[in-house]
């Protein structure tokens, strides 16, 4: 067997494999549910209903998608320039940290001044966290996969230390959590009476902004050139290292907004379980979207939908919640295969 690249893929070829991948994911998930003792034919319906079927479910999915859009964008921006930022998790916590440090009373400002300040502070913190690996890479050639990945653990332990020490809420009954944000620091809801905060709106705005930057700005052109062929970019006079550092700043800032929006929009305080792996799931979100920033909105909702839907399904059908993780992994692997099949033809010999 060998793979032959296809010069001009037809419309059918670019649509059918991904559709088959989704269908296969559903079939495999149903089989797994059957093994777990549930009715395989009810599984899909229960997931869709649990994720999008009711107003409550839909809002839950959008809330869950919000941090994933931010981390997905962070990864999409970085990967587009072939800067492998695996550390969105650390940058997310950096954003959350700044939000609680400044938002729990240190700045007694009204909301219209405080909230943008918190967001900006979070962006700067996330950018700073990723600046270190970026400089190590451009100056000394240190592999950013290693540094960004390991920084996740370092940063989580750092947060843990702070939550057991200086940031510990004196009213928290001994739990390792920070004090709550003051009311002016909380993100308002987007619509009266609906449990959806402005973090979601900001995420959509960021996705559009990133898309505009990538397609219309010189920085976007440079980032794509550096990502596709670093040697040719350097030969043409594009300052590759400077572009990589700018990319890192943008990526780190976007990931940090996930932490800001979770704390200021949803949780109100910082705990160690603020992110159930949003930083890593962001990689899946970005890859499924083929690194397209607008696609990230769709895939983040898809991934959030699977999580929320599978959660609800597991309660309704009495199967383990781990089914959601397995579905996501299956969807990712099959989608990667499908994407390859849209570009290559398999020849048997």
């Amino acid at each position: 067997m060998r793979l032959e690249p296809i010069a001009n893929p037809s419309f059918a070829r670019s649509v059918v494999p991904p559709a088959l991948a989704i269908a296969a994911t559903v079939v495999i998930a149903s089989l797994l549910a059957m093994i777990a003792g549930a009715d395989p034919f009810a599984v899909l319906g229960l997931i869709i209903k649990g994720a999008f079927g009711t107003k409550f479910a839909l809002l839950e999915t959008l809330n869950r998608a919000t941090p994933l859009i931010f981390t997905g964008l962070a990864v999409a921006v970085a990967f587009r320039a072939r800067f492998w930022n695996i550390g969105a998790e650390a940058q997310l916590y950096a954003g959350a940290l700044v939000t609680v440090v400044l938002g729990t009373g240190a700045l007694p400002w009204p909301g219209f001044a405080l909230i943008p300040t918190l967001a900006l502070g979070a962006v700067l913190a996330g950018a700073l966290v990723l600046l270190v690996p970026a400089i190590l890479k451009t100056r000394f050639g240190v592999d950013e996969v290693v540094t960004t990945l390991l920084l996740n653990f370092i940063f989580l332990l750092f947060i843990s230390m702070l939550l057991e020490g200086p940031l510990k809420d004196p009213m928290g009954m001994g739990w390792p959590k920070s004090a709550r944000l003051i009311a002016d620091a909380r993100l308002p809801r987007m619509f009266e009476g609906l449990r959806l905060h402005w973090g979601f709106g900001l995420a959509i705005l960021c996705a559009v902004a990133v898309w505009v930057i990538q397609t219309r700005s010189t920085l976007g052109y440079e980032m794509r050139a550096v990502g596709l062929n670093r040697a040719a970019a350097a030969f043409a006079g594009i300052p590759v290292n400077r572009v990589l550092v700018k990319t890192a700043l943008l990526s780190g800032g976007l990931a940090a907004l996930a932490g800001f929006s979770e704390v200021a929009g949803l949780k109100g305080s910082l705990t160690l379980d603020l992110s159930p792996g949003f930083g890593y799931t962001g990689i899946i979100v970005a890859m499924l979207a083929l690194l397209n920033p607008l696609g990230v909105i769709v895939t983040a909702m898809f991934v959030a939908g699977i999580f929320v839907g599978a959660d609800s399904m597991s309660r309704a059908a009495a199967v383990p919640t781990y089914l959601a993780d397995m579905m996501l992994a299956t969807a990712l692997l099959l989608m990667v295969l499908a994407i390859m099949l849209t570009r290559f033809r398999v020849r048997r010999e």
Partner: protein
Amino acid sequence: MRDTADVVLRLDAITKRFGKLIANDAISLSLRRGEVVALLGENGAGKTTLMNILFGQYTADSGTVEVFGRVLPPGNSRAALDAGVGMVHQHFTLADNMTVKENISLGAQPLFALSMKNSEITKKIKKISDDFNLKVDLEARVANLTVGERQRVEILKALYRDVKILILDEPTAVLTPQETDDLFATLRLAIANGLSIVFISHKLHEVMAISDRVSVLRHGKLVAEVDTADTDKEALATLMMGTGAVAPDIAVATPGRDLFSIKNVSTPNIGSIPGLKRVSLNLKAGQIVGLAGVSGNGQAALADLVAGLCTPAEGTIEHHGDPVKNWSARDAVNKGIARIPEDRHKTGTIADFSLTENAILECYNSDDFSKSGWMYWKKARAFAVDIIDKYDVRCPGPDTRIRLLSGGNMQKLILGRVLEAAPDIVLANQPVRGLDIGAVNYVHSQLLAARDRGAAVLLISEDLDEIMRLSDVIHVISGGRLSPEFLRGTKSPSELGGWMAGQGFDEQVTHAS
């Protein structure tokens, strides 16, 4: 007259299509015991495709491969090797960090052998190396070998596997004339020992010197099969290139002032590739300077220096007589240096960018195409359309990804990109490598046009014919040192070959001191 019993390799009516392109059109070829058949053809004529089919890398659409009377199963990459066919590739397949002996025995022994039988391996290699006049130090690391020595290791590697048929793909492309003579001596010994050889080349005098028969390929077709004794270089050239190819007619030029000067520049060695050693070079208005030499002798360092990719460790560079302080790729572009890179796929273009995006690669941040950080895509696209028209780039349109273009059309886009602003300095590094003859002539005529309007052109090539045909002045580079300048027609190919092999440089130093 032809004795078919002795045929050791037979390709029968091999056809292979890639999309609309017919790479091999019903090509038949036979090789008899103890003979050298030359496969002659321009780059892109289908030689490599044919060999890939023989070795099972590609499956032919129709036709068969027969070795010692047995048909090989198509698409099986081990079949030809197991049947006793060995190949020495143009680009060597050696492990740099291992010794010569390890490279030769690598893969020729079972994976889980209990003992390596070191002495037996050495004995066998020694015997082959004596029999075939292939002298090389078995314990040396491949990284430390010269190109000629590496090729000897490749040939030893094939002979170690007891091949009966040896295929050499452009074996002389990287050799000096003297090393080529040594190679031919080895090949004659191989013939005497009963081997048969397919010699792939596009160099006519070598084909005349070594082969018994010649098969000529052109645009995927077998256009002639002749006995070498019955033909001559001129006839073969016509067969190979067809009659449509006309070399550009070159008028003598009178050079103007120095536009770009390199003064006593040295650069560090990079691995086993020498850097520049106190090199001085003047590029004058209205003159083509040809840089001849075997690859890996410092051409890359000199090209990088002019292109702005490296700065001198010692010495200075001058642009229009002014010393240059800051020097980067961007500076070189801004100073109006047109740079045609050696590898148009790896450094010249970005494969998944459109023609438009590739056209503005060097000037995207000029006022024409962007302002305060935002692109003017409409203007960029119009610029690309303009280049496509003017430089005859055959493509579906400016939004096509450039990876879908042929090498010649890719090169035309690069030419348009760098020449459109009428630069006064042109760096052309291997500008016609891998192009068909039509594209070659086009590129050459563009370089000559640039010269005629007063630009200084530096032409770097490993093809001595190209250098001698186009250059007003020739320098030879060897081991990072630059020869004195030779005016057009003052040195014969073999004299230049001597310089390429490193002769003459020491006397030059003596004279200078």
